[in-house]
C-alpha cells in the first residue's frame, strides 16, 4: 500500500471539525458506527474540503476526469493536482493516464480503501452529531 501522507498541510480550514475543536476532549466516548469516533481520530487526509469533495464526487461515479473534477470543485489545476496526489499517495484514489487523440487525459477513481475511509469519516460525523444531541 502506498505511504499515507498526513502532513501538516492536511490541516482543516477554519470552521471545520478538528482535533482542537470545542468539546474535543468530551467526545471520547461518543457512540456511532465508528468505534473510535473522537475528533482526534478523524481522517485528517480527507477532512480537508477539496480532498473531501474529490472523494465524495468519486464515490458516486465510476471515474471522473481531471477537468470534470476541477470544474466540479471550482479550483485550479495546481490545487487539484496537489490534493489529488495526496489522496493517490494514500491509496484512496486511483489515477489513470491516457491519451484521447493527441491530448493527455487523466482519470480518477475511488479505491476500496478510499471508499472505506469515506464511510468511516461519515460514521465519525454522524457519531459527533448523535453524541452532541444526546448530551
Amino acid at each position, binding site marked *: 500500500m502506498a505511504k499515507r501522507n498526513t502532513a501538516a498541510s492536511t490541516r482543516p480550514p477554519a*470552521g*471545520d*471539525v478538528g482535533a482542537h*475543536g*470545542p*468539546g*474535543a476532549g468530551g*467526545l471520547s466516548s461518543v457512540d456511532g458506527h465508528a468505534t473510535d469516533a473522537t*475528533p482526534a481520530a478523524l481522517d485528517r487526509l480527507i477532512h480537508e*474540503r477539496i480532498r*473531501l*469533495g474529490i472523494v*465524495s*464526487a*468519486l*464515490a*458516486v*461515479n*465510476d*471515474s*471522473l*476526469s481531471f*477537468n*470534470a473534477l476541477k*470544474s*466540479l470543485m471550482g479550483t485550479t489545476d495546481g490545487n487539484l493536482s496537489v490534493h489529488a496526489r495526496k489522496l493517490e499517495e494514500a491509496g484512496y484514489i486511483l489515477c489513470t493516464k491516457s491519451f484521447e487523440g493527441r491530448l493527455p487525459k487523466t482519470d480518477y477513481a475511488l479505491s476500496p480503501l478510499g471508499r472505506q475511509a*469515506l464511510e468511516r469519516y*461519515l460514521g*465519525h*460525523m*454522524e457519531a*459527533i*452529531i448523535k453524541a*452532541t*444531541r444526546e448530551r
Partner: protein
Amino acid sequence: MTRHDRPLKLEPPAPPPALSDRALDNLRFIRQTMEAAGTFTAVSGAGITLTGIVALIATLVAGTHLESPRWLLTWMAAAPIAFSASVYHTVRKTRASKATFTTALARKLALAFFPSLVAGAVLTAVAIRAGWYPALPGMWLMMYGAAVMAGGAMSVPIVPVMGALFMGFGAIALAVPLVFAGWPPELRGVLLNSIMAAGFGGLHVLFGYLISRRYGG
C-alpha cells in the same frame, strides 16, 4: 489617568460554531458534492450533437415557407426524433459510466426541463390557431432555451450557457417579423429558417462537441 493607563476593553471573541453544527456542515457538503457529481456526466455531448444534426436536416427539408404544412410538420416531426436521440445517448452514457441517476434526480430534471416545453406547446397551438407563423421560430427557441437553462442548472455549467444562447437566438427571431416588416414573406422565411438552423442546428452541434470533449462523451 492617561489614555495609555486605561485598561483595554477587548471584545469577547465570537463563540466558535458548535461541533455538531460543523459536523452537519461537513455532511451537507458531502451530500451536495455527491448530488452535483451525480448530474455531472449525465448529459451526452453525442446526443446533443445528434440533435443538432437532426435540426439541420429539418431546416433543409422544411423549406422556407413558414405558413406551409410541410414546414410545420417537418419541425414537429424533428422535435421528438431529436429528443429521443438525445435521451437515448444520455441513458447510454449514464449506464456506461455507471453514474448514479436516481429517481429523485430524474424527477428534478424533468420538473426543471418540461414546464417550459409544455408552455411552448400550448403557445404553439395558440399561435397556429391565430396564424402567427412568423412568431413560431422565436417562440420555440425561447421556450427551449428556458427549458435548457432550468434543466442545466443541475448539470455542468456549459449547459445553462447553451440555454441562454438559445434564448438570445429566440429574441432575435422574434424581432425579425417586426424589424423586417417591409420585407417579402419569403425573405423573412429564409431569415427565420436560418436562425432556426443556427440555433437548433449550430448551437447543438457546437455545444455537443464541447461537452463531448470536456465531459467524456
